[in-house]
């Protein structure tokens, strides 16, 4: 029998990048194939071609032994390919059932049959143990549940090949384990699964086979039984990597950030932070662990002046910063690495130089009587690009043209350059290659050692556990536990993240 999917010698290039270079991949029915590689290795590009989102430049794709032209997702869906995207592809104002049915609607009296769709979704969610209320709007659901909807969407279309692109990034360890179980269940029912991740633990737990990509090239194929974490890591990065962050023991000094019972509303005008209290001292890194959507964003925005605080107080260096604007907070010595650097942290159409003074353009050095001082700005830019090893042809290049890792270095460079007293870093290594991750981690530790207080928010539990001196677990807008990093283990924190009790 022909394999479910056979990709032969596929290449794809984007302006300036060869994203996939002569890659071949086979997936059989009932098999979980892990696609492993660091960010930018070309994993997403490969599966997007299988899903019909891009046409390959060269190479062939076979499904059930037939050569296919996947010109659109529709063509792929019709051939039984389903994909759960890394960025959820759900319409926020639609209900679960509407999202699931979208594109494969059933009709009654010529209209979309919403009742049928809701029944179908309910039946599916029961069958696969993916509990979700079909009538609820997506924007009212936590991310973990949204992912279930994404999976239901695929199941609704009777997919024979299921692609999961970094599905565990937004899950607690327990939820991750459940998802891995679900994946095994699919495989048992004869579905072929492509599982994209950069987390070695998960690969070893679930995959039948592992295909490793690096810089757009296929560097190897192996089986979990024939390798271990270190071996996989070496294949993935091309050298042996230090997975742990090297750092001295923290020497906390005076308190820099004190949050007293703040109440903040989220975008939907519901309670986002519910009387949250927290304290961060100079010379320590406090990591916030939690499942995304439990108030991390609101917390960061409340501290940095981007979100209104309804009740409670925020003190920075014992000065009341509760109703301060982002500008005032910045002046108090707070640096902010925003979670969405593309949206908040950078202006893509601006040069690197302008981005490096994005929140400092009024400083006397860069502005005299309202006139921008171009030379000092350029001088600073040249210095920072050098110091933070930003790879760019020139400081005049638009920030939008940089790679994810370099964009992030740009933001980090800007925020650390002026010696802040408090660094609020949200998802500092999201979508960043391993080399840059190491670099950024070292910079954060260095900032701590120079006496800054650091508040680290990350969806990557490993990052929080590895980098933080103290771990605060956030759940439903509250800090439910604070643990010494040394005392925090994955399972315990995971249970707390899910709202469970430690005892």
């Amino acid at each position: 029998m022909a394999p479910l999917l056979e990709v032969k010698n596929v290449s794809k290039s984007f302006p300036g990048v060869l994203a996939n270079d002569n890659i071949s991949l086979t997936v059989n029915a009932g098999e979980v194939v892990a696609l492993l590689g660091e960010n930018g290795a070309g994993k997403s590009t490969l599966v997007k071609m299988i899903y019909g989102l891009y046409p390959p430049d060269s190479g062939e794709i076979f499904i059930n032994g037939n050569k296919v032209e996947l010109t659109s997702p529709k063509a792929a869906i019709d051939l039984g390919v389903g994909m759960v995207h890394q960025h959820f592809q759900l319409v926020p104002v639609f209900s679960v059932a509407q999202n699931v049915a979208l594109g494969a609607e059933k009709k009654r009296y010529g209209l979309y049959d919403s009742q049928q769709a809701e029944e179908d979704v309910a039946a599916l969610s029961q069958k696969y143990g993916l509990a979700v209320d079909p009538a609820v709007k997506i924007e009212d659901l936590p991310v973990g549940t949204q992912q279930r909807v994404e999976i239901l969407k695929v199941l609704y279309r009777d997919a024979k090949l299921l692609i999961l692109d970094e599905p565990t990034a937004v899950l607690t360890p327990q939820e991750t384990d459940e998802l891995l179980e679900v994946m095994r269940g699919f495989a048992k029912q004869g579905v072929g699964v492509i599982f994209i991740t950069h987390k070695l633990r998960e690969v070893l737990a679930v995959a039948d086979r592992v295909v490793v990509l690096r810089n757009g090239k296929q560097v190897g194929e192996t089986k979990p039984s024939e390798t271990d974490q270190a071996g996989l890591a070496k294949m993935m990065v091309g050298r042996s990597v230090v997975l742990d962050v090297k750092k001295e023991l923290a020497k906390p000094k005076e308190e820099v950030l004190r949050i007293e019972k703040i109440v903040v509303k989220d975008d939907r005008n519901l309670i986002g932070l519910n009387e949250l209290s927290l304290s961060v001292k100079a010379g320590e890194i406090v990591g916030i662990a939690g499942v995304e959507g439990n108030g991390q964003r609101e917390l960061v925005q409340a501290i940095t002046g981007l979100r209104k605080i309804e009740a409670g107080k925020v003190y920075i260096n014992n000065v009341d910063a509760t109703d301060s604007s982002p500008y005032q907070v910045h002046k108090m010595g707070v640096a902010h690495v925003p979670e969405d650097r593309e949206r908040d942290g950078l202006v893509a159409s601006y040069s690197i130089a302008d981005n490096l003074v994005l929140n400092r353009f009024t400083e006397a050095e860069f502005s005299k009587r309202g006139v921008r001082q171009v030379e000092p700005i350029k001088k600073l830019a040249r210095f920072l690009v050098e110091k933070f090893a930003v790879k760019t042809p020139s400081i005049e290049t638009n920030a939008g043209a940089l790679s994810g890792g370099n964009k992030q270095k740009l933001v980090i460079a800007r925020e650390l350059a002026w010696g802040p007293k408090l660094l609020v870093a949200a998802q500092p290594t999201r979508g960043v290659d391993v080399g840059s991750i190491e670099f950024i981690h070292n910079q954060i530790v260095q900032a701590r050692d120079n006496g800054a207080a650091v508040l680290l928010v990350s969806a990557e539990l490993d990052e929080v556990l590895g980098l933080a001196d103290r771990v605060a677990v956030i759940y439903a807008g509250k800090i439910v536990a604070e643990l010494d990093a040394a005392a925090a283990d994955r399972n315990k924190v995971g249970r707390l993240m899910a709202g469970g009790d430690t005892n």
Partner: protein
Amino acid sequence: MIQGEEAKKLHPTLSYLVQKQSLVVPLIAVLVAFLIGSVLIALQGVNPVGAYQTIFNAALGSERGLLRTLEKTTPLILAGLAVAVALRVGLFNIGAQGQLIMGAFFATWAGFTFTNLPALLHVFVGLLAGVIAGGLWAAIAGVLKAYRGVHEVISTIMLNSIAIALLDYLVNHPFKEPGQALPRTVPIFETAQLPKLGFVPVGFLLALLVAMFISWVINRTTAGFQFNTVGANKFAAAYAGIKIKYIVVASMLLSGGLAGLGGAVESLGITYRFEPAFNKGLGFDGITIALLARANPLATIPAAFLVGVLRSGAPSLQFDYGIEPEIVDLLLAITLLLVAAPILGKLIFRKYAKKSETISSGWGS
């Protein structure tokens, strides 16, 4: 941008043109528009070469023609700047017309109200009155946008209609010229008149200076940096500590002030009084000009000049050939289409063509 290896493969001249394509494309767009226009003219049974000759002769061939062309160009530069400045901040000021007529009226008002002012001061007071009136009128839309979330396209459309009705009342009742059948104000004092230097109206020089000043503000000052940042990425602007609401109001104030100045220059330099029929359509031409100029302040000068030449030459076209003056609107529309649609750039430069960018924003707040 073409960089490195790829550029080397190209012939140097071609490579230069590719670099300068934001300049080359509009020029070719104008040429192609004229070519298409010549077909339309020929279909009317008129020799297109003669027709174009007539336009340019009338608009540029004599001192009188030049004067009229420059007079027409002047408010167009300012109206174009008004729309362009707002576009920089991501606001679509469709109400330049209303702001312009408010400016025209209040400049006139200052011109006939204050007595015994020395000439230079009186002109200045008149212009200032126009700027303030236009600016405040636009600021209403700015405030509604910033603090109440009312989209500026809607509010400025409403404000246009309100301005027309309000001014109609003012020239029909409190400020109507006594003994005149026509609703209009009395003329301004001579001290408030903007003079001409030969065939160059002083207002035109003023408009050039203002365009250069605005260009400098946008590109060189921290205020301009804030405008651009809000326009380019308002999330990043908020993150960077820029007070977006304040910038929205300030930019509308500036935009309206520029439109108001356009009206004021018209009143003090050409019409010397206010009449509702004057200033018709100038603000809407400002939209065309700002879009032709891709919101670049300096580029509004040639764009406005093009419109000025065509508008100034059109009546002669009718005189000489009986072709209706609206042909120039068709020419402008085709030019705008070719400048804005990426077709032309792709046809000429193929894969080296610049990607089109969106310069206006949708309704999304």
